[in-house]
């Protein structure tokens, strides 16, 4: 028997029962589509996290007060904030770095008729380079403004869109808390990150925030950027020993501050998204398995229904292996067809979701290859038992079957 004829016979049998063939295939379509979509979406989320971390600045260290325990259920305790002196000490003692203090608060901002609560960061001109977030136009803080804590500010793009309503912001006076503040610069657009609008921000000289908004002479975080790649570990160690001396915690006690680098954060987030990907993929794989059982079910029904046909074929000279091949090819053809449609639906679904959620669209040939291979394998595995049942029929019993 020629291979092409076997395939032809199976295609005929599938075409003869279009609705049933479609319903059989549907299980595989849904299975493959969900596996492909879930794993692709997981990869897309990982990629998105990595890209966002990179946009924060990859050699960035956050120095925060308090203690931070890693892992789930980690406890954060508060501790005293840093002083500007700590920032100066780090700048002077540790080589090859840029340092920016940050005193973060939020204030009610009034521009014209619009008002909103906006995060305000008191910092220095080093902020732009350290956080990889530069001026689009306007100017930086002048030294006199920084030392005097002048009421000047640099604003993010969202404020222009939402509050200035497109008017020219440079030179305008806005209300930040109870202070009238002059806009001297505008930051480049940075977009959203993990649900946070990074353009909804106001930068002011650190002393201005200390005196005019918070009323405390301290700093809530220190941002440090290592100038040379791969030195963050060393820089972190130096900062830790320096701050330990300066903050002088109770002997034998834990540090009352912690240093976290973006690599750490990236790894934590990536491992989280990877776990999610595996989990979702596993759930989707179960639906693929259910689809396979659906194929077996239909093929078994089909064998019973076509017992007489099998008898005729055996009577006119089909060997057991001819019948086996015919039914096996039929189930493989069904599952392969389902696999192909599933791939298209899965990739299409991924595209739709990433487009809607503004995530990077990732297509992995490996994932598609695995999804497709599995669908074919399911055709073989779940088709074999019914096909064998058909092939082992006794010709005369099959012919007498009603």
């Amino acid at each position: 028997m020629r291979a092409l004829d076997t395939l032809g016979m199976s295609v005929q049998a599938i075409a003869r029962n279009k609705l049933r063939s479609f319903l059989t295939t549907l299980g595989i379509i849904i299975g493959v589509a969900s596996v492909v979509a879930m794993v692709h979406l997981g990869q897309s989320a990982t990629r998105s996290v990595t890209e966002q971390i990179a946009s924060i600045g990859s050699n960035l260290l956050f120095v925060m007060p308090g203690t931070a325990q890693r892992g789930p259920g980690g406890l954060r305790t508060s501790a005293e904030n840093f002083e500007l002196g700590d920032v100066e000490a780090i700048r002077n003692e540790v080589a090859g770095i840029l340092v920016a203090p940050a005193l973060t608060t939020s204030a009610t901002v009034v521009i014209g008729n619009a008002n909103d609560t906006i995060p305000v960061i008191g910092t220095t001109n080093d902020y732009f380079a350290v956080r990889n977030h530069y001026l689009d136009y306007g100017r930086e803080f002048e030294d006199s403004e920084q030392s005097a804590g002048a009421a000047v500010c640099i604003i993010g793009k969202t404020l222009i869109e939402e509050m200035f309503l497109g008017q020219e912001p440079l030179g305008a006076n806005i209300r930040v808390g109870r202070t009238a503040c002059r806009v001297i610069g505008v930051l480049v657009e940075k977009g959203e990150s993990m649900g946070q609008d990074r353009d909804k921000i106001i930068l002011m000289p650190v002393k201005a925030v200390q005196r005019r908004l918070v009323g405390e002479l301290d700093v809530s975080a220190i941002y440090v950027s290592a100038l040379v790649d791969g030195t963050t570990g060393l820089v972190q160690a130096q900062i830790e020993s320096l701050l330990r001396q300066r903050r002088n915690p109770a002997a034998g006690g834990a540090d009352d501050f912690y240093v976290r680098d973006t690599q750490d954060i990236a790894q934590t987030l990536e491992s989280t998204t990877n776990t999610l990907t595996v989990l979702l993929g596993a759930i989707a794989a179960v639906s693929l398995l259910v689809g396979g059982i659906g194929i077996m079910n239909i093929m078994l029904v089909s064998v019973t229904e076509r017992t007489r046909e099998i008898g005729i074929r055996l009577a006119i000279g089909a060997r057991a292996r001819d019948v086996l091949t015919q039914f096996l090819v039929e189930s493989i053809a069904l599952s392969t067809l389902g696999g192909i449609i599933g791939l298209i639906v899965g990739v299409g679904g991924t595209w739709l979701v990433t487009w809607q959620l503004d995530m990077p669209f990732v297509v992995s040939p490996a994932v598609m290859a695995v999804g497709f291979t599995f669908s074919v394998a399911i055709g073989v595995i779940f088709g074999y038992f019914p096909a064998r049942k058909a092939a082992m029929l006794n010709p005369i019993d099959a012919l007498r079957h009603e």
Partner: protein
Amino acid sequence: MGPVNVGVSEISQSSPCVVEARDIYKIYGSGATEVRALDGVSLNIRAGEFVAIMGPSGSGKSTCMNILGCLDVPSSGEYRFRGVEVGGLNRDELALLRRNFMGFVFQSFNLLPRTSALSNVELPLIYEGVRPAQRHELAMQALTTVGLADRAHATSAQLSGGQQQRVAIARALVTEPPLLLADEPTGNLDTAMAGEIMKELVSIREQRGITILMVTHEPDIARYADRVLFFTDGKLVRDGTPSEVIP
């Protein structure tokens, strides 16, 4: 494939007897519920003979035919087809024997549903591995022989009973087998149609010199044969020309 071909090629054209059966038993169940469908049947059929098997229901005539057609295996006994002991062949070898040396015609036609007459006739050739072009030609020839060339693309449902049986005959003959087995070929047809089918079989036999073994319970149909075997209770009780056997 090797041993299969060897087994089948041993079947020679020279043996005068196509079918030689000795002491064939077919027993279902055991003990008190034992049923002897065939109870020690011995018979010979020579090449070119047209033999009818008759008998009342349950006399074992169909069982005998299924065993001679290698669709079923006897419980005991010796069956030689063209000189080859069939008892020693496995499933696949029996399939090859049916494919190459036997054609089957059934009471209920047994065409594949929703399939054209042409495809039905082509089916045995597909299993033989004949290329499509040649397959079409041979199938059309066979359909022409039974006078249905113009209905080649009709499906079974679009054909009358007589036409369906002709397609089945074409399918049985397309591989040019030396033995044609017909199980009540006219059982589902009216008298006029039955007569036509029988004339068809007689003319095919005259043209091709094929051996025909036919099961029937109708004396009128059996009279077309040149020899009649009469079965009762699993035993062959009479064997002779139609006029001798049929009262």
